[in-house]
């Protein structure tokens, strides 16, 4: 009847595991659209990634002598696995996924102290390791349904598990790559000449609808108040502004239209599912605005002038570095104090 408990005795309904479940749920429309446009690849990768991730997580928790099920049930490993699987090309071999998950979960997450202590987004660390180590496998994205017949389930499995290289028709350069490699063509000409763009409805074939799906998932999470609008809006607005400035009327020097940049590549996935990761992002709303704008800026710079066609992962990791600095300068003014606090922020 009597026990000593510190107040508060009431607790809000939001729980970390519930948050993670909602995030996984919100990723499903994107996965569905990816599967419908590019075939079974991403679905298989995702299942594979989740199994690997849970396996690593359980093994590490067992090694750290923690209750395994308690930690698995927070769903954070599943979210990391899903994000990584959605970023890897659909027909990348299974070991690519395994290595990616290895660098995401044991290295980027647990070597830094586990859940809540990782300074970098684990999924993005895994992705970058893969991108740098296996450029061949990582830049070959699948061709969308609008360009070619999709491989069946059996073929997909053989590409992933048997090491059979998908034929040229199945893989194709991404739209972002095409715009980047463009030399001398006006935007309109480029659009007409390349099927990735000519078969698109408004941005780039396949990718555009995937982005719409992620946008919808993100809006769902916003509606459930899982995070604030600050970071995504800041990132998308920055990207929009920069791409508008450098659109250059569609000349041969153009870096692509704003619509193209917003709905191609990993833009929406990044804006709503990656830069909103609380652990490696900024803590205050003002900080999140800066964080989002920074990612948007870096994404555009790398897309336009960098060596890699897409840049969300780089942008996020670079801003992860900057997050403590941003947090330092965006501390709120405490009630009853005249000046903002200026104390070193601790990042676990």
């Amino acid at each position, binding site marked *: *009847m*009597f026990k000593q408990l510190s*107040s508060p*005795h009431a*607790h809000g309904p939001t729980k970390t595991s519930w948050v993670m479940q909602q995030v996984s749920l919100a990723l499903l429309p994107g996965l569905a659209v990816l599967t419908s446009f590019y075939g079974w690849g991403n679905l298989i990768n995702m299942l594979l990634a989740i199994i690997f991730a849970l396996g690593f997580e359980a093994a590490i928790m067992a090694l750290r002598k923690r209750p395994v099920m308690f930690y698995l049930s927070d769903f954070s490993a599943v979210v990391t696995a899903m994000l990584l699987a959605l970023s890897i090309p659909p027909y990348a071999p299974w070991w690519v996924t395994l290595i990616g998950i290895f660098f995401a979960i044991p290295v980027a997450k647990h070597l830094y102290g586990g859940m809540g202590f990782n300074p970098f987004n684990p999924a993005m660390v895994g992705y970058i390791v893969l991108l740098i180590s296996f450029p061949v496998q990582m830049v070959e994205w699948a061709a969308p349904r609008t360009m070619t017949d999709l491989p069946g389930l059996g073929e997909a499995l053989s590409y992933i598990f048997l090491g059979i290289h998908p034929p040229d028709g199945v893989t194709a350069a991404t739209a972002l790559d095409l715009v980047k490699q463009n030399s001398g063509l006006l935007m309109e000409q480029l659009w007409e000449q390349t099927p990735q763009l000519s078969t698109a409805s408004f941005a780039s074939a396949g990718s555009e609808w995937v982005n719409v799906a992620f946008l919808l998932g993100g809006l769902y999470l916003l509606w459930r108040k899982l995070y604030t609008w600050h970071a995504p809006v800041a990132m998308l607005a920055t990207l929009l502004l920069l791409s508008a400035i450098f659109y250059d009327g569609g000349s041969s020097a153009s870096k692509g239209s704003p619509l193209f940049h917003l709905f191609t590549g990993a833009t929406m996935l990044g804006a709503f599912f990656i830069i909103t990761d609380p652990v490696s992002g900024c803590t205050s709303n003002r900080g999140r605005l800066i964080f989002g704008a920074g990612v948007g800026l870096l994404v555009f710079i790398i897309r336009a002038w960098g060596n890699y066609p897409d840049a969300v992962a780089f942008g996020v990791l670079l801003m992860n570095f900057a997050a403590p600095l941003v947090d330092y300068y965006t501390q*709120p003014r*405490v*009630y*009853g104090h005249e000046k903002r606090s200026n104390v070193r922020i601790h990042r676990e």
Partner: protein
Amino acid sequence: MSQNLTQRIKTAQIWDIPGGIHPPENKAQSLKDPIAEAPLPKQVILPLAMHIGAPAEPLVQVGDKVKTGQMVAEPKGLVSAAIHASISGTVTGIEDRPLAHSSGMSGPCIIIESDNQDDWVDLEPIDNFRDIDPATLVEKVRYAGLAGMGGAGFPTAVKLQPRHTIHTLILNGTECEPYITADHALMRERAEDVIQGALLMAYMVGEPEQILVGIEDNKPDAIEALQKAIDRAGDSRLSQRVFPTKYPSGGEKQLIQILTGKEVKSGGLPADLGILVQNVGSAVAAWEAITQGKPLVSRVTTLVGDALGRQNNYLARIGTPIADLLELAEIDRNKSDRVVVGGPMMGFTLLNDQVPVTKITNCLLVPSLKELPAPPPAQACIRCGLCAEACPASLLPQQLFWYAQVEDHDKLRDYNLFDCIECGACAYVCPSSIPLVQYYRAAKGDIRESEREKVKSDHARLRFEARKERLEKEAEEREAKRKARMEAAKAKQAASDSGKSSDGASDLVAAAMARVKQTSANPEETRLKLERQKKTFEERIEGIEAKIAEAESDDIKAKFSSQLKNTQKKLDGILEKLDSLENTASQEEIAPAPEKDAAAAAIERAKQKSEALAGMSESEKLKSTLASLKSRQEKAAAKVAEAQASGADTLEALKTGLGKIEEKILATEKQLTELGED
């Protein structure tokens, strides 16, 4: 609400506070019925410290008859409040009882057994308070025992004597915590007294320019009742401010920010801004204390929670055991695992339901297990920032949490831990269920403790250094004296070198050393001391044995037996010492004989004797010879008697020996008389 009223309220400007949360309000269940009067308790327990500040000083003794409303303890010191008998009856004890406190500890209480009469003392009502000097009124409030009834328990009279001019009096009717409706019910049913109380308080603090009644918009019936009372009072300074419901708007600092847009400086008081905040319950209590002369002997307490059958507001006598009220509200003890005093956000759990209702008990919450489940184990902080968004003081709870964990007190201070009002909004929203407030409370307690320790250690350092200085000075003085003496001795020596006198100084030292030796080696004294010790230890052992016999629990017994063992050991040690002392003493007596042969000893003795005799005068010599002869005569006579008894053949020889001694005695006596004649 009339259209006119709504408009008037809406025109006043209000400000927003940062953060805040919207937990389910759960206020309806205790507001269905009007305030009910709880039956008279059979016994009341009145803690001497129901308020912040110094405990009150008892004025009664066990066995005294008291009447309801009689002062039983008076305020002691500036920040204190009086305590009154809340029922009539007999004082049956002034003793430690468990208190309504998060620690569950006990404290001094006055216990009164009811005579069921509820016989009141004669009250001294004041018809028109404006005829009386404000300072007198404040003193009356102090002796009426008023203490902040919103939950903090700060003595009301102290707040009514601000050091600064008050231009705004704020009446706090916010009651922002879920479940609690004590103030709400009071405002609804006694709006007139609330407003009149406000005017009374305004008079006491020197008539401020405005009197604001702050209330959340989730209490429409109370807002309407208050507005009517305000209109009737017809004082243009009075106005009601309604603002959106949000927790914790009712915090003093938060309410000031909402109503005036100003912030109380960190570490400062509202009075620094010229603002005074009083709870509506305190206003009613002040009104009763002055106009009816009635001290604070009862208060409205909300009994709420799914484990209670009758959730309602009760007017309970202060000191009523909480268990009585819980029974009154038909508690189902199987449904709940805790009783919370206060609301779900800032209340504390009870460790015992025999504790009394106090002046600050505004709510007793007995939630069912389903209603407010205990939080699951904490998960890792994911830095989601929800806590920072919820914090009404704009702190960074996640940073405070980290540094509280690693006990980095400097950093905690840098992050303004002491601006935390412990409202619990951060812990409420935390998705990882981290008990943040407990971390902050522990850290604050630790910091305060280490501050106390720091003060103490600084003090100890000063004393240590002062002592060192003193000892050094003493040593110097001794040294100086010694030197002076040496100088003197040298001078003396130089002077007496020709006169050849003995060295006085060295004689003194030798004598002192001899004295020391004597005292330290005196076996008799040591023995006496040891015997004294033995006696006291025996007494102690008896005492402890008696205690063991009395002790009830095994714990205490074990404690005493270990004490007994120790004492016994010490006693054994003393006995041992005593034994060894006696042995050496007897050995000393026996030892010399076998060590040296008898002849040598005799020669020694004779030598000593002759030496001794050498220095004596003629008559002295004779006397001593006589004495020794007489003792020899005695010994010889004894031996003769012995021989006679045993019939030994040495009898004759002995008899001759005795005769010879007698002859010698006579001769010596003759010599002595001759000498005396000379």
